[in-house]
């Protein structure tokens, strides 16, 4: 190679990382390329979420004319698996393998379930809608098929995300975990945005054949992304494979985990805050349309504004938390951003101010980003080394259940107020304002629940585990990131 080309390559290599917001994540142990590759599992999870909650939601109602209530039931089925994330995480913690793997077998199983669900789903949806020759069949066949397909995808994505995040925690040194969390969230958003655009474009001219191509294409892409993500990531721990078996049950591990300092309060704060930010997710667009007379294009831009706010929140939180800022204070800053944001959205109705509404939506995104980042970073850094899967599984279980319940509750509360005789003649804004007021109350409760959590250090959280260590032979992590066999 000539000297000129050597100099050119060296220059390019030195310039490249400066234009990537997460380039400084790279460490000798976990280079950026490997981390980006690992985060591809989040892209597959984002794709599955958008396909089920966004694209298929519309396709089933508009193109396939399935009743909206049945669609709502199908879409909420994956939520059934959310509480099992804690169990999945625990199973991956204690998994014994001759190969010395803990996480890879679970990511592979989750990928298979996601693939299987998507492979079956298009036919199940077509039979559910009574298309083709299936019109004369009993309705339960289509319902059962679609139910199985949605359950499979739901189980798969919960498994992949829980164990994938546990693997990321295993690989990242403690000081880099905030940046890894940021990257994982950004990749989830990227997966959602890109796949929403691709699915929208691919289904412009809807035919049953095109539906099969799109969903089964998503199945293949899921396998490719997840296999690429986990390829050569987890090191083989021969000592773990050779270690004598000890009977750690889920109950023992759960009791240990929940007896950690303020563990219940941490979960309560995560649940309340997630619900507080998530209740209005599906109501922002109709509020803009019905109350502030936004057209369809403008309301779609609202979702983009919310996502942009979230992105800015994640990047900002990554930068600040990497300098050692307390993650619970960061989450509280998110809540303190969210409360005035919802007040602005409420005030937009009497003032007829579109600007106030858009600014409020943007700030809800920022606040939600700071809150999610803060709570996940806290979960990662406080997780005892041998119970990472359980800790992240519990976080995921609480977070996913609260988000799902919040979204459903938002819609139900709006509809109940709308139908109530008290709301007659009060204008279209009232049902929405009541939901936003509930969100403000939930965020205020979150803030109260988080006050005792400020400044908790990893050593505080593992105290209880260290005490119970003779039973488990566990390994706790010291505040400076070293491991201590206890």
């Amino acid at each position: 190679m000539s000297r000129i080309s050597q100099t050119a390559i060296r220059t390019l290599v030195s310039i490249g990382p400066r234009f990537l917001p997460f380039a400084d994540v790279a460490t000798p142990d976990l280079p950026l390329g490997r981390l980006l590759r690992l985060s591809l599992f989040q892209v597959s999870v984002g794709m599955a979420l958008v396909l089920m909650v966004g694209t298929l939601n519309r396709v089933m109602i508009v193109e396939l004319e399935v009743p909206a209530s049945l669609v709502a039931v199908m879409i909420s089925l994956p939520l059934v698996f959310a509480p099992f994330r804690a169990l999945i995480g625990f199973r991956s913690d204690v998994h014994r393998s001759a190969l010395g793997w803990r996480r890879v077998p679970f990511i592979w199983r989750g990928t298979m379930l996601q693939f299987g669900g998507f492979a079956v789903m298009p036919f199940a949806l077509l039979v559910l809608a009574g298309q083709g020759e299936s019109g004369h069949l009993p309705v339960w066949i289509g319902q059962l098929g679609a139910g199985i397909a949605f359950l499979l995808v739901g189980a798969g994505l919960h498994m992949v995300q829980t164990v994938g995040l546990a693997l990321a925690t295993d690989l990242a040194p403690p000081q880099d975990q905030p940046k890894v969390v940021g990257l994982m969230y950004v990749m989830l958003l990227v997966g959602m945005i890109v796949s929403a655009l691709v699915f929208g474009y691919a289904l412009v001219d809807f035919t049953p054949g095109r539906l099969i191509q799109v969903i089964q294409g998503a199945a293949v892409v899921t396998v490719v992304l997840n296999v690429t993500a986990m390829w050569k990531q987890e090191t083989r721990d021969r000592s773990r494979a050779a270690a004598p078996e000890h009977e750690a049950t889920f109950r023992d591990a759960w009791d240990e985990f929940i007896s950690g300092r303020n563990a219940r309060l941490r979960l309560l704060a995560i649940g309340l805050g997630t619900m507080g930010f998530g209740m209005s997710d599906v109501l922002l667009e109709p509020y803009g349309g019905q109350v502030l007379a936004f057209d369809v294009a403008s309301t779609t831009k609202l979702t983009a504004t919310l996502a942009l706010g979230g992105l800015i929140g994640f990047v900002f939180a990554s930068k600040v938390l990497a300098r050692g800022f307390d993650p619970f204070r960061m989450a509280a800053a998110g809540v303190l951003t969210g409360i005035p944001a919802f007040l602005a959205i409420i005030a937009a109705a009497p003032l007829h101010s579109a600007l106030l509404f858009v600014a409020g939506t943007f700030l809800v995104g920022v606040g939600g980003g700071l809150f999610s980042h803060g709570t996940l970073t806290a979960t990662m850094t406080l997780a005892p080394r041998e119970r990472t899967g359980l800790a992240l599984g519990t976080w995921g279980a609480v977070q996913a259940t609260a988000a799902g319940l919040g979204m459903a509750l938002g819609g139900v509360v709006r509809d109940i107020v709308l139908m109530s005789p008290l709301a007659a003649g009060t204008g279209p804004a009232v049902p929405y304002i009541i939901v936003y007021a509930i969100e403000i109350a939930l965020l205020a409760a979150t803030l109260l629940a988080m006050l005792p959590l400020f400044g908790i250090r990893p050593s505080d959280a593992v105290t209880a585990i260290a005490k119970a260590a003779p039973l488990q032979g566990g390994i706790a992590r010291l505040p400076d990131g070293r491991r201590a066999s206890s």
Partner: protein
Amino acid sequence: MNYDPDKVWPSGLTLREAEELHRHIIDGTRVFGFFALLAHILAYFYSPWLG
């Protein structure tokens, strides 16, 4: 190359490791087979073939 009675060649894995990988392949094939069967049954309901 030193002969190691625990390892099987050409993979260089121990017998337990090789058996575990093999079990993943067998289980994977069964699960994918089940998904394929389910998809074919539903596809037949939608548009029967050989009719």
